[in-house]
């Protein structure tokens, strides 16, 4: 018995030793694991803890503004207010929404929609209730904000175009960053310039992102701001554009489709660049509906097209200036002598008509330009040949991009530039693509395959006025003139052309006489009427002609004649006649310019008495 007890006690002692040994095994296992985490993998977990607690919030920069030459805002930033709600901090949702609905004039439908939106949002995330609010809307609310826990009033800024339709093509529009932009490092909530100045000067206008490092808790609530780098606002850009002139051109054009370009003849500054119809670029900021976009895309008047730079049309009779310059430059006896216009020209088995069926009798270059005789220029072009005409047109800046900072830009077409046409001109024996003599002739009066943009024509007018400097059109203000190339033209030849252009306005028979002779500034110019389809048979039924078969009307010129300041190109799509439909628009622009300058000099004179003597006023 005692033996048994001793045996039991011994066995118990052995088991106790096992327990004493087991305890450090258990605790050692734990210690090993903890050391693994805290010692060997510490850095990895430290990083993860920081990732947990730190949140980097990007701070969006305010976009630079775009102002016109007078400092008027064309693309500005409008401060607005938005009301947000954090569901979990709201005590009585129904009552709060009811109060807000009354203060912000919400409809019942909107309240119901918000209810639904709140229900589907995480309770700790803020829900946008209303935005684009004015201070007057939110000020009564924000004063009593402490009564409504969970409600926030935040200020933000959005782009606004005060002259949206008037400047839609030159200013352009913005839209939210797409997938490609996000790959380039933009945030999905950033607006990016898509067309016009907004696109060309995107890097200057955009500004630089700032950021804020915040400590957040497990629910993503902000606990503290650790540091922040404020965003840098984009640069403000001043344009050479003058909104008043642009407005005058637009008013003169009315509801018609077309384009007007006004350029400073010396600096190349773009004073007006209008394309009609315009479109409301503000719609892109508020979130463009697909239906609206589709209606713009499908509109036969193509409002999205910038007709001043992106569309090329036959320059019609305005091109006669180039043909004339080519003739003078190449010492054509026809350019220096005279010809006879019976109202038509016959060659091979074909007959080309002058616009004036009765003919112009005896015509020299001067008369042919003033009265826009077609036959004279058919003959001149026939003499010169396509090569010389192309070279001259190119020298005067046609058929090439003007390099204006408004991409994309059309270069227009000069027949000899196109490779297949070049081949056709050189190898007239080629059966398939034969270049006919008649084609050179109609090119001479600006018809046929030849096309130019209104901006190119304005620049041509500026070059004639300034002595042959082909300028880069400058959209920005205060930029020194950039002469892309200088046309080698004899001053006496240029003077002949100028005086002919002067007589277009001055002479009783001049095509722009009625529109411009009585304008405040003397001017010189050339009209053009581009045939859209052949209407030789019955010109008398003008009014019945379908709108889209009507001719394009052109006017190009400069003013004042003696001391040129501005060059103008007016293009009216399916507008009718250059003299009667396009020239009056130029007259309106000149009127606006003159008025503006008169007012400016008046202001200078009147400013002096305004200086008050000290003490004369309390």
């Amino acid at each position: 018995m005692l033996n048994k007890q001793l045996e039991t006690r011994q066995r118990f002692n052995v088991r106790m030793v096992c327990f004493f040994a087991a305890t450090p095994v258990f605790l050692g296992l734990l210690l090993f694991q903890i050391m693994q985490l805290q010692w060997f993998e510490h850095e990895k977990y430290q990083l993860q803890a920081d990732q947990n607690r730190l949140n980097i919030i990007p701070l969006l920069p305010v976009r630079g503004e775009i102002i016109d030459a007078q400092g008027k805002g064309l693309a500005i930033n409008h401060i607005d207010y938005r009301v947000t709600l954090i569901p979990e901090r709201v005590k009585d949702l129904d009552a709060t929404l009811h109060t807000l609905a009354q203060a912000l004039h919400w409809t019942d439908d909107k309240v119901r929609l918000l209810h639904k939106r709140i229900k589907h949002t995480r309770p700790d995330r803020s829900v946008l209730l209303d935005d684009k609010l004015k201070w007057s809307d939110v000020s009564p609310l924000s004063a009593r904000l402490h009564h409504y826990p969970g409600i926030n009033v935040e200020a933000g800024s959005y782009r606004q175009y005060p002259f949206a339709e008037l400047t839609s093509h030159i200013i352009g529009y913005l839209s939210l960053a797409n997938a490609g932009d996000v790959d380039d490092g933009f945030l999905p909530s950033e607006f990016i310039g898509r067309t016009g100045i907004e696109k060309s000067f995107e890097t200057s206008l955009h500004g630089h992102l700032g950021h804020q490092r915040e400590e957040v808790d497990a629910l993503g609530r902000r606990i503290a701001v650790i540091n922040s780098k404020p965003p840098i606002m984009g640069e403000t850009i001043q344009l050479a554009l003058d909104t008043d002139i642009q407005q005058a051109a637009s008013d003169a054009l009315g509801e018609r489709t077309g384009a007007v370009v006004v350029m400073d003849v010396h600096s190349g500054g773009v004073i007006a660049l209008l394309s009609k119809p315009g479109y409301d670029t503000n719609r892109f900021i508020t979130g463009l509906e697909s239906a609206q976009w589709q209606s713009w895309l499908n509109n036969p008047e193509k409002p999205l097209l910038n007709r001043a730079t992106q569309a090329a049309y036959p320059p019609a009779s305005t091109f006669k200036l180039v043909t004339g310059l080519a003739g003078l430059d190449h010492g054509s006896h026809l350019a220096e002598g005279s010809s006879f216009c019976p109202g038509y020209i016959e060659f091979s088995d074909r007959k080309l008509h002058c616009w004036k069926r009765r003919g112009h009798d005896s015509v020299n270059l001067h008369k042919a330009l003033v009265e826009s005789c077609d036959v004279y220029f058919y003959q001149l072009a026939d003499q010169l040949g396509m090569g010389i005409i192309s070279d001259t047109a190119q020298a005067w800046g046609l058929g090439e991009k003007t390099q204006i900072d408004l991409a994309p830009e059309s270069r227009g077409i000069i027949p000899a530039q196109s490779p297949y046409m070049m081949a056709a001109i050189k190898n007239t024996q080629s059966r398939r693509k034969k270049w006919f003599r008649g084609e050179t002739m109609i090119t001479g009066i600006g018809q046929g395959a030849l096309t130019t943009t209104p901006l190119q024509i304005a620049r041509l007018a500026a070059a004639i006025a300034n002595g042959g400097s082909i300028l880069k059109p400058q959209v920005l203000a205060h930029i020194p003139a950039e002469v892309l190339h200088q046309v080698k033209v004899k001053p006496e030849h240029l003077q002949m052309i100028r005086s002919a252009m002067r007589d277009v306005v001055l002479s009783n028979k001049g095509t722009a006489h009625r529109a411009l002779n009585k304008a405040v500034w003397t001017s010189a110019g050339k009209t053009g009427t581009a045939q859209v389809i052949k209407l030789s048979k019955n010109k008398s039924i003008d009014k019945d002609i379908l709108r889209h078969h009507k001719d394009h009307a052109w006017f190009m010129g400069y003013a004042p004649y003696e001391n040129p300041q501005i060059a103008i190109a007016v293009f009216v799509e399916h507008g009718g006649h250059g003299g009667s439909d396009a020239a009056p628009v130029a007259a309106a622009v000149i009127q606006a310019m003159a008025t503006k300058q008169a007012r400016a000099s008046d202001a200078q004179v009147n400013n002096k008495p305004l200086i008050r003597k000290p003490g004369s006023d309390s």
Partner: protein
Amino acid sequence: MKRALCSLDWILLASLLSLAALGLCVLYAAVYQGDMGLWQKQLIFWGAGMTGFLILCFVPLRFLGLVSWPMYSIGLLLLMLIPLIGDVHMGARRWLDIGFTNLQPSEIMKWAMMFVLASWFATREARGFVNIGTPLLLVAVPAALILSQPDLGTTLVLLFATVALLIAAGLPWRIFAAALVLGIASLPVLWHFMHDYQKQRVLTLLDPQSDPLGAGYHVIQSSIAIGSGGLFGKGFLQGTQARLHFLPEQHTDFIFSVLAEEGGLIAVILLLGLYATLISRILLIAQRAHSRFASMLCIGIASIFTLYITVNIGMVSGIFPVVGLPLPFISYGGSALVTMLAALGLVMRVAIESYEKIPWQRPGSPLA
């Protein structure tokens, strides 16, 4: 009185009071950004628990022998009542509403079971079919009932303590080894009977990143908290994981990660050192106890503490699946704290009685 003071195990008491101080500091940090009232409540629980501890120091052990069987019977009865009238709370039917408070019968059963087993093995060795089979049957019935609640944690505690007592009572090693092999072999069967959430916890343990915001979230976040603490910790109240509420249940089951984050490896070693002292002290008392019943009791209590500590820290640091066992003396919670202090009171009573009855075995005696 002087005799009573001499007979107290001062090392046990010192490590307990150190744990109390450490636990209250950690709990302060855990609830600092939340409900500070919990900290004050825990202070009250400590007061109540220590009172219980002191009372039990003066209750003779033989008294325990008297109440163990009735306690077991009542516990079993209440457990059987639970499926009928129990309260469902967080998906498990564990509680009985007894008017002024909620009672968790499995908590009573855990201690009653230990008393019963201790008294069974007080006079027997774990050898022979009847001597082993009877206590296994006594455990199997309540264990099955508790597992079906479901309460895996308490079931584990029950089984672990039983195994510890069987080993202490001289269970032949070959039976232990056979049972171990059988147990491992039956794991797939156990898997089959596990609840979905329990399976999910096991899967999450194997690969926490498979569901980082769902079931794996707790383990990932507590690992981050522990790991980012480093050797010296982030400083008192400076733990970002704790302060910003990334830690789940940071004042109860996951409180260890608060300690590890703010105190670093130093604090972890301090805590594990205190636990090692406490457990080895209980085992020492078990060895020196005058009666086999007292030894068994102490071994059972030591095994429960060891399991709590291992499972809790193992769970928080990603060794074991998430099983809801508190960290002794550190986690917030009144009933767990009070029962653990009561258990330590019993251990202290064993120390006192050993000192009284076997003076030559008293600590510090040259004869020891």
